[in-house]
């Protein structure tokens, strides 16, 4: 009898989630790459064969090791001032993951706060918040980020703030929509009757039930943030040289584009792999977390 009961009992939410998530091979691959990137970022000082700013004057623009003229000391070659590209990429992982994490934390906290306020306050406050979000959304993300940087001045921190501003509306809209669909539910009404304060209703009762789409958005927002911050770096408006940020590395490499393909190819490949991994995982998370799309 107890065996039967065990057999029909529903699996824990986490296990169910993992079951659906692991069905998507791409998503698992994405997750593995992200874990790998995190490890590389954490242990960059140990893993990187050279310092990020260390220059080898005897080895300028050395091609990767597999090409004629390559040097086994520099697996992916060196740049125009003799810095090891692999080491710079490894150190750059820190910046990219940090940018993604900070941008997503900033934009999701502000977005969730605004979205919950809009859903709970209703009326004029809601209209004001949502119209403001419409205005932000009507400008292309990179253009808005550029304008914010034009006000704040170029630099890594300002670039992160700029990109965070751009992604606030996505979180606000999602939070408001999910909160509005949760508000008429019975558990919310009963919490209200039980005397829960508005803040408790917002953050303890309603918010946890709005999380799945927000988690998906956070993952996809992470990749978009990495991409936009790299674009700002590339345009000279983000991290400034000699920071080993990938977009900034690409900008520095531009003038050698026809002479040394590797200085251009490698940083871009790093950006692509990171963004792709987060997008793959985001797709998988959406399949696993969104009950409407869940395959029966």
């Amino acid at each position: 009898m107890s065996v039967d009961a065990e057999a029909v009992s529903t699996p824990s939410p986490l296990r169910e989630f993992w079951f659906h998530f692991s069905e998507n091979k791409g998503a698992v691959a994405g997750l593995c790459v992200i874990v790998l990137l995190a490890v590389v970022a954490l242990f960059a000082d140990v893993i990187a064969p050279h310092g990020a700013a260390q220059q080898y004057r005897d080895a300028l623009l050395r091609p990767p090791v597999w090409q004629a003229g390559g040097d086994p000391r520099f697996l992916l070659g060196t740049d125009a001032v003799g810095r090891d590209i692999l080491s710079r990429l490894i150190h750059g992982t820190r910046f990219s993951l940090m940018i993604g994490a900070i941008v997503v934390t900033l934009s999701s906290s502000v977005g969730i706060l605004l979205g919950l306020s809009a859903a709970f306050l209703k009326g004029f406050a809601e209209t004001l918040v949502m119209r403001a979000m419409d205005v932000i959304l009507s400008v292309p993300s990179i253009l808005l980020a550029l304008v914010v940087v034009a006000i704040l001045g170029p630099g890594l921190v300002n670039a992160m703030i700029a990109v965070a501003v751009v992604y606030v509306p996505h979180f606000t809209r999602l939070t408001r929509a999910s909160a509005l669909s949760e508000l008429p539910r019975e558990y919310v009404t009963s919490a209200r009757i039980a005397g829960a304060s508005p803040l408790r209703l917002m953050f303890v009762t309603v918010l946890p039930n709005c999380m799945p789409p927000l988690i998906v958005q956070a993952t996809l927002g992470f990749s978009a943030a990495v991409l936009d911050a790299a674009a700002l770096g590339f345009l000279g408006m983000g991290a400034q040289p000699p920071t080993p940020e990938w977009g900034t590395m690409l900008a520095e490499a531009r003038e050698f584009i026809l002479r040394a393909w590797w200085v251009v190819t490698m940083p871009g490949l790093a950006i692509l792999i990171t963004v792709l991994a987060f997008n793959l995982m985001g797709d998988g998370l959406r399949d696993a977390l969104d009950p409407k799309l869940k395959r029966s």
Partner: protein
Amino acid sequence: MLRFIISRLGHLLPTFFGLTLVSFAFIRLVPGDPIEVMAGERGVAPERHARLMAELGFDRPLWEQYLSYLGDLLQGDLGRSLITKQPVSSEFLTLFPATMELAFCAMLFAIVIGLPAGVLAAAKRGSPFDHGIMAAALTGYSMPIFWWGLLLIVLFSGTLGWTPVSGRISFLYFVQPVTGFLLIDTLLSGQPGAFRSAVAHLILPAIVVGTIPLAVIARQTRSAMLEVLSEDYVRTARAKGLPPSRVIGLHALRNALIPVVTVIGLQVGTLFAGAILTETIFAWPGVGKWLLDSISRRDYPSVQGGLLLIALIIMLVNLLVDLLYGVLNPRIRHVR
């Protein structure tokens, strides 16, 4: 339908006024007051500063300044560039055809490849072809296009020598501007060499700008097709014995296109974002490069005007798409 149009416009107006507020605030948020900003590094003497502040109305209350800014806007006056002293609107309009030509060709590239790719992927669901297309689409969607542009230059301009590296046309040709669209103007000028040169210059930038829309269109087409293909009427058409090409190409595609049209419309923002990066890489003389140059030269009135105009264009295109959507799908008119 009229009511539908009016309600859409009603949604648009607050956003437009919000945008004017943002662009009005922009020049006042930049560190230093507007006169200092305009004077730039040269600086300005205190008495001249005070006189200019009064002359240009910066000493009036903010709401008065905003109203007069709004009044100027409605008359098409976006201010003057600090560098060239030309009206911002005329600078924008001179460069806009170049961006539009690029965006139009990029969209054409994205649709011509993305639509069939999405349809075929849906028709062959689960096949290696489907997986290949979807993997390529996700890669395209994740692409840092500024890097993609550089890679294409390395390959096609550097290694193969097939295409020029930058610009819109070879210096060998002079083409009288008629429409501003070089592909048309070179044809009108009757110089086949000039037309070929314009096409060669356009190919790589168009591919770069079109890459993300292409990926989005392919993904959206596939999922819209999959949804439609599982509907009853498609099964009926199949049961009648119609050939698969007819079922997919005619019955299914027509309905699947409705969401795809919306997505195509929503790509206008992506096209502009792409144009800023791509025009910079290929030295394409359009509004994207102009805007970025204006930002780095601290030409704030140009940035202010360009921001407003680009957002306005995107809003209008989205409105058009909304209306088109209402025409294509009559249900939507009554729901809202």
